[in-house]
């Protein structure tokens, strides 16, 4: 551990700080959502520690509430979290010479936010792995504190507050910055339309069906564009 707490670790830690105001409400919503569908506060906290899965924790909670089978819940979170595989591939070139024993905890700490901070690191950064470890460590601390607070508060929030709406709003906050290119907009439109049309399916299967159609449509458009150029 001594090695990872290098100056580069603290640089990553510090550069993560501006993202904290965005993470706190999101993590609190995740902590509350699990409690609202029947997790105990302890289970909600354990879910954050073991799953550590952001949006997927929210999706899992919602599906749990609609009595979906466990396997389907896990499959849906797999799809929601597929982007981690993309980050993992994209960040791999930084990790030359890092031992396997160190790679496991570093992989566990991979999130949207720590990935984004690390990819946007200053060009002068000489130790990107420690820098990544620092930003991931702060993300982890903030996320776990936020979900714990949410889990403990969850039970005392009046039922009449429309707090369930915080879940899609959190997704809106994540979605809008992604819609920067025309293919992404197209993917989002197809996916949204199919998810609405398939709303009648049980267990929120419309999520998987919608997302799959959106991705296939996006790939077709990408292929068309490649042919033209």
């Amino acid at each position: 551990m001594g090695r990872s707490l290098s100056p580069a670790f603290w640089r990553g830690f510090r550069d993560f700080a501006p993202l904290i105001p965005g993470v706190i409400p999101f993590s609190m919503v995740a902590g509350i959502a699990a409690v609202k569908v029947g997790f105990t506060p302890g289970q909600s906290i354990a879910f954050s520690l073991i799953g550590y899965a952001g949006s997927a924790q929210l999706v899992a909670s919602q599906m749990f509430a609609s009595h979906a089978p466990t396997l389907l819940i896990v499959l849906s979170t797999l799809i929601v979290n597929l982007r981690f595989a993309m980050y993992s591939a994209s960040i791999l070139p930084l990790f030359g010479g890092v031992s396997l024993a160190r790679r496991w905890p570093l992989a566990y700490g991979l999130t949207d936010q720590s990935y984004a901070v690390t990819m946007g690191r200053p060009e002068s950064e000489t130790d990107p792995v420690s820098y990544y470890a620092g930003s991931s460590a702060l993300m982890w601390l903030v996320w776990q504190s936020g979900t714990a607070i949410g889990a403990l508060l969850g039970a005392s929030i009046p039922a009449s507050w429309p707090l369930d709406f915080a879940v899609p709003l959190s997704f809106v906050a994540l979605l809008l910055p992604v819609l920067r290119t025309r293919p992404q907009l197209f993917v989002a439109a197809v996916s949204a339309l199919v998810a609405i049309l398939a709303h009648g399916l049980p267990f929120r299967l419309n999520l998987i069906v919608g997302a799959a159609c959106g991705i296939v449509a996006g790939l077709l458009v990408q292929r068309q564009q490649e042919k033209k150029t």
Partner: protein
Amino acid sequence: MKIWLVIVGVGLVSLFLRSSSLVLLRNRKLPESVTSSLGLVPAAVLSALVAPELLFHNGLFQPFGPRLVAGIVAGLVAWKTRNVFWTLVVGLGLLFVAQAIDWN
């Protein structure tokens, strides 16, 4: 029991995906086609999650409900500020007001 299965299942799946290239594949690369389709996942998944929530309430189709209005305004806030906190405050605030004036 089911809750713990969900917790452990989601934990295993998440760790598997995060470690896929970093630990499990290491020196082998994912094919280009796989990485380019993974790039489309966030837009696809997030919009499939959001859209039905804005148009359906308690299972009923509600094309011009308060949730749609609150969601669109919150979307504008998210787009302008990229700030989760203000997105939540504006969206929840609008829905709260809508409930207060009995617009459901």
